[in-house]
């Protein structure tokens, strides 16, 4: 939210953040440390280069997409609350919490997780995964192992499988339907260390 730069000794709006993201204080503290570690020049905000410094991301075929998912459109930096909010997508879904919190969908709900994945494809943010967008991701993930034509036909087939309204693109609803049988909660969660 605000540009309230985080102070050194305590995390701003820690209570709110915990409420919103469901992270415990220990989690939050750990993530804050991590945030500060990544924030090399101590601005209280991360720039894409800061993420680039994370070793593994360079090897990750879709690392750049994931980095850009941390930045809301038009912004060059990400502050700690937004950082945590993005990470909160990957918190495992604790059932009791979701059941109670009907008033507002928690950030780690199935839909939100899927939305996150969807946006990794949907680079132009038009709400649809076009063939070209899918192809880009596929190319990144499959790399040189498969020839371009094979990639094309894989993309084609994948789109055909999901595309219900035959507009040659996958909308979010179609995306969600195609993954109905997948246990997203398992596949899109990690165990955050305390």
């Amino acid at each position, binding site marked *: 939210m605000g540009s309230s730069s985080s102070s050194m000794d305590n995390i701003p709006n820690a209570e709110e953040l915990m409420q919103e993201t469901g992270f415990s204080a220990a989690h939050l503290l750990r993530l804050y440390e991590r945030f500060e570690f990544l924030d090399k020049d101590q601005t209280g905000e991360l720039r894409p280069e800061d993420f680039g410094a*994370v070793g*593994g*991301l360079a090897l990750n075929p879709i690392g750049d997409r994931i980095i850009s998912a941390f930045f809301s459109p038009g912004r060059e930096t990400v502050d700690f609350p937004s950082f945590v909010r993005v990470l909160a997508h990957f918190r495992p879904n604790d059932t009791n919490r979701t059941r109670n919190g009907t008033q507002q969908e928690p950030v780690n709900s199935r839909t939100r997780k899927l939305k996150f994945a969807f946006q990794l494809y949907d680079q132009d943010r038009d709400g649809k995964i076009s063939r070209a967008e899918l192809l880009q991701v596929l190319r990144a993930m499959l790399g040189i192992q*498969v*020839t371009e034509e094979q990639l094309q*036909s*894989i993309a084609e087939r994948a789109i055909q499988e999901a595309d219900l309204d035959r507009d040659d693109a996958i909308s979010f609803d179609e995306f969600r339907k195609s993954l109905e049988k997948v246990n997203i909660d398992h596949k899109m969660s990690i*165990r*955050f260390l305390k």
Partner: protein
Amino acid sequence: MQRCGYVLLLWLVGSVLLLCPVSGVMRVKDKAALTHKEPHLKPSESKSNANGTEHGHGSSIKKVPIVTFKWHHVEAPYLIALWILVAGLAKMVIEANHHVTNVIPESALLICFGFILGGMIWGADKVQTFTLTPTVFFFYLLPQIILDAGYFMPNKLFFSNLGAILIYAIIGTCWNAASLGLSLWGCHKGGAMGDLDIGLLQYLLFGSLMAAVDPVAVIAVFEQVHVNEVLFILVFGESLLNDGVTVVLFNVFDAFVSLGGSQIDAVEIIKGIISFFVVAFGGSLLGLVFGLLVSLLTRCTKNIQIIEPGFIFVLGYLAYLTAEMLSLSAILSIVFCGVCCQKYINANMDEKSVSTVRYTMKVLANGSETMIFVFLGISAIDKTIWVWNTGFILLTLLFIMIYRFIGVFFLTWILNRYRLVPIGFIDQVIMSYGGLRGAVAYGLAVMLNESKIKEKNLMISTTLIVVYFTVIFQGITMKPLVTWLKVKRAAVTELTLIEKVQNKLFDHVLVAIEDISGQIGHNYMRDKWNYFEEKWMSWALMKPSVRKTRDHVFNVFHQLNLKDAMSYVAEGERRGSLEFIRNESAFIDFKKKFGDEFSEAMPDIMADMSDDHGAASDMRRHPVPSVSLEMHEQTMKGMRETEDINTHHLLQQHLYKGRKQHRHRYSRSHFDVNKDENEVQEIFQRTMRSRLESFKSAKMGVAPPKTISKYSKKDQQQKMPNGKSLDKSKSYYSGDEDFEFSEGDSASGYDASGSTFPMRVTYRAGAGIENPAFMPDMDPMAPIQIPPWLAEAELDSGMVAPSQRAQVRLPWTPSNLRRLAPFRASAQSNDSFMLADAPATQPRDDEELPPPPSPPPPPSNRDGGYM
């Protein structure tokens, strides 16, 4: 069927009865073949050989015998073979009644069958001639089951739950052993079982042999209930690994018992603990080494493909024996050998060898599983081993149950604090209840040394009771319990590409998130391992030729396409010979899914997606690994054999042979090149003509007709009356001369049908395509699926089209055209075949046409599945 079963049963009984007196007569050799198979086998063979020759000599002096009866000559192998036959027949009879096996698991039935057989043998011999001896069990029956389990292990699932599995297998088993031993000892002290000569150490020894959940029993029961995969892998993985643990514990306590209570001090105990780890990890390591060895070996067996499947079995067995020799854990060794080599050998070996390995594995494992259960039953019918002590037996049963529950719940409680996906309460109940004991416990009990353990027979009978109780009672109640508790079952999922792509994406995302949040988690480790594996292991252990196409997504894609191609042909076959009509009935599901206005590029695929039968094939290179012992469940699902055979035959006769028959057969030593002179000639001429024509038209700037059309609704509804179409198609494929591939005809034909022609996108090699890289001809999948970005491509005049005569005969309906699809596919690949073979005569074409390594058409792929 049933009647047949009874007849067989009678026959079986007869054969057994026959067998018994014979073996009774031969009791001179005291215990017959199976009991002392191995020390007995070689000597007896050579001895009887000698006998035979002597006999021959001796008799030649008197008179020439026409026939002699030489039972001794063949006794041991004969009995073994007979037993295998009997066990196999037993299984067949049992499996004939599905409504029985639905209620009572097969393993329980086999044990009961063993009771009956044992009774007969007892009746005939008055002594139990055949029992399951530890040597036979551990050396000849167990290894292949464990190897099978390792080879078919779903690796990803196994390793992602390895932590939990190890905790259950090691701590859980130790807990079971200690608690059972101590409690029994306590009860003994309390006087619950009367006067028994068993000390604390003996109780612990007994506890350790009873501790292990038995993989054979677990597979047998769980494969019929289809619980969710995580639950299954937990129980199954535990049962596999804890065998190693239990054997180690057994040996340690056995040594302690031999030492005697007074000799045991802290040093000995520490030595015991150390030996535990050495034995377990040493065994696993040895297995890994052997696994790598197999993988390396299969890398260079391309010239001896016919025996390469043998290596897996021999080396697996050697891994087992070597571990046994070094007194390491043989079971762990062979498990890890299988786990480690599966990926590489599947990639390295020829496809035929892979399916050979698969089937042989299943045959052996299933066979010995059957034998084990039958013999477990037979062994019970022996008066000499039965010592009844109600207190001991009942308390053992009770404690096993209770401590299993306590152990599982306690360990799960700890594990759940660290697990991303906690193990639910119901799953825990099933895990505890699934603690079946089996032949391993029995084998160990029989191995007890009678001189040191006075109550050996009591222990054997208790073990048998426990085995029977768990396998029969718990086995039978497992299914109702699973249903009643509403345990999450294994989801029957359809393979879809998008899901696989997603899963891959998710993996990457999770790794990235772990990276960003700066923790070294599970995903991080897996990613690092994958990286290492890809970079080094695959490099070292895989043939270079197969390394490229190993990506999982691509594999799935390949599988799906194969499946489609199969069902495409099967569908055409079902509808009457070669008529590949796409009428509404084929589209029903599809329409439901995609609405009326579908079509575009892939009518075949779509139609076939909606067509769910005839799907799987043994061509599938990587079916989802499953530890199910039932091979047919994996590969034979939905196979309609007769039709497939027909189709195969048809294709064999009427399709031109592709140059390469099988896409995946890299480095084949025997390469089936099309040798049919006439065919080659004909194809060559057609190809030449069409190319000439296309060249002409290109030169003259005549743009070939564009025919991009969609299915109109009318087309889809247009359905040919079945009889008529059958008729026509018969006349159609009955003679090759009907096909004249003159492009003039076909072009006009396509033109004429331009408005209704379904969008099987076709293109002409050579003309009208801007980007040669996009030529679908180079694409293995092209004949089945041509993406719409090629939609602007022109119709291929060189493709197989009916001759004028044929066209006259056939009204131009879209269905007629569509039915030609498979032919066209084959002709396409022959195009490039010709090119490859005659580049000199066709210098001009080289630049426009796809390079030689053209993949075979899908029909030939299908062909290959049946060779």
